[in-house]
């Protein structure tokens, strides 16, 4: 190749992808990073919403990684197309609703599209064989390469020496001898390499960067799908699954009750889409009511909501109930005693 080779690196914000980009960049390859927004990323949203998190750093780890390596980073919204990956994964789910193998193939496929559109030559990931039980295995690596369409243009610098040389190695765009042979779940080789580069600070998502690996979140998503009778969701659904207390007293409706001021404010933005309930007489949470609640259901929702406010011990409170985008009305209700809120209602 007469010009400088160009590689696009999948950057998650964790250490491995950062090291992979660094290793290849050090060989004189022009590297740019790509980070995909699926809607299920752990960082960002909840910190932005919750009042108690206001003082925590709001660093985007993918951007931070790119700064450390000294590469451009493109953050790409794939949340719409990603729906198909989550709802119908060809290779099934992991321990929760995490479709890790399909997800990785999809992301590499999107990186391949970006590579072709932007005149780049190959793709880098921070995958290490044996690191992850579902997607980073010797037998799944070829699946990702094949199903993404990346084939021989997919280079995994941290474990490349354990596999047959890829095109970038055979063509001499990168020196195979300067790549690595990491394997297994141990993080020690990566940490040693990080120390070699003087990288002392890094996040360690290790699969924890995605809400779909979270048991509680997956349970709420499964409940949503069951209530709808189909595996559908949009970005607002995902946002709301990340916040509040979720209580389903009956199959036809569910309450999402704010836990603090930040969630109260954020959930107020959904007044046009859902019924809302709040205690007019006492400070307390806003609750969204999703589904098809009857008038009686809304009174029950108001009673439950009042239980989580300052008026929980009152005999009666005035509850404001507002239909989606409609006019509010007031109902006198008795806050529901905690013992009457069945354990199985908590999603």
């Amino acid at each position, binding site marked *: 190749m007469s010009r400088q080779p160009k590689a696009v690196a999948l950057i998650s914000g964790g250490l491995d992808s950062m090291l992979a980009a660094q290793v290849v*960049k050090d060989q004189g390859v022009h590297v740019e990073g790509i980070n995909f927004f699926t809607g299920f990323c752990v960082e960002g949203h909840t910190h932005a919403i919750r009042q108690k998190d206001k003082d925590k*750093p709001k660093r985007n780890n993918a951007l*931070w990684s790119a700064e450390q390596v000294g590469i451009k980073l493109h953050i790409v*919204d794939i949340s719409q197309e990603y729906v198909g990956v989550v709802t119908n994964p060809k290779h099934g789910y992991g321990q929760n609703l995490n479709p890790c193998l399909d997800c990785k193939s999809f992301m590499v496929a999107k990186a391949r599209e970006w590579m072709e559109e932007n005149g780049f030559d190959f793709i880098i990931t921070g995958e290490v064989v044996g690191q992850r039980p579902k997607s980073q295995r010797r037998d799944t690596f070829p699946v990702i390469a094949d199903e993404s369409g990346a084939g021989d243009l997919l280079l995994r610098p941290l474990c490349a020496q354990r596999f047959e040389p890829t095109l970038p190695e055979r063509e001499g765009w990168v020196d195979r001898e300067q790549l690595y042979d990491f394997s297994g779940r141990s993080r020690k080789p990566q940490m040693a390499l990080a120390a070699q580069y003087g990288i002392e600070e890094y996040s360690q998502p290790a699969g924890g960067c995605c809400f779909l690996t979270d048991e509680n979140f997956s349970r709420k998503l499964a409940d949503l799908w069951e209530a709808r009778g189909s595996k559908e969701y949009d970005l607002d659904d995902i946002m709301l699954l990340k916040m509040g207390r979720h209580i389903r007293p009956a199959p036809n409706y569910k309450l999402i009750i704010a836990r603090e001021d930040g969630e109260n404010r954020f959930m107020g933005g959904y007044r046009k889409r859902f019924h809302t309930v709040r205690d007019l007489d006492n400070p307390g949470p806003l609750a969204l009511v999703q589904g098809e609640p009857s008038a009686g259901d809304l009174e029950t929702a108001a009673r439950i909501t009042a239980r989580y406010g300052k008026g929980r011990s009152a005999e009666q409170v005035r509850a404001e109930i507002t239909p989606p985008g409609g006019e509010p009305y007031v109902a006198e209700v008795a806050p529901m005693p905690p013992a009457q809120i069945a354990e199985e209602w908590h999603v």
Partner: protein
Amino acid sequence: MSEGTEREFLDARSLLCPLPVIRTEERVNQLAPGAVLEVRASDPGVLHDIPSWCRVNGHEVIEAREDGDEQVVVLKVGRDDDGGD
């Protein structure tokens, strides 16, 4: 590509990070080097993330400030070969 002389505006209010950064990149990709873009947002994270995105991609941050409950970031679009090392 528009000429890079007038100030462009992007309303990223009600979006949570990283969506304001994504919308910023999408808009910047339509602008010529030297163009000035003002982004208005409601997620405090943009005061960290958009300047960070600008640094790695070679754009200049002219201003990044709170404005009541909102945040404003003004940036100047760099050349294609800016950014990275």
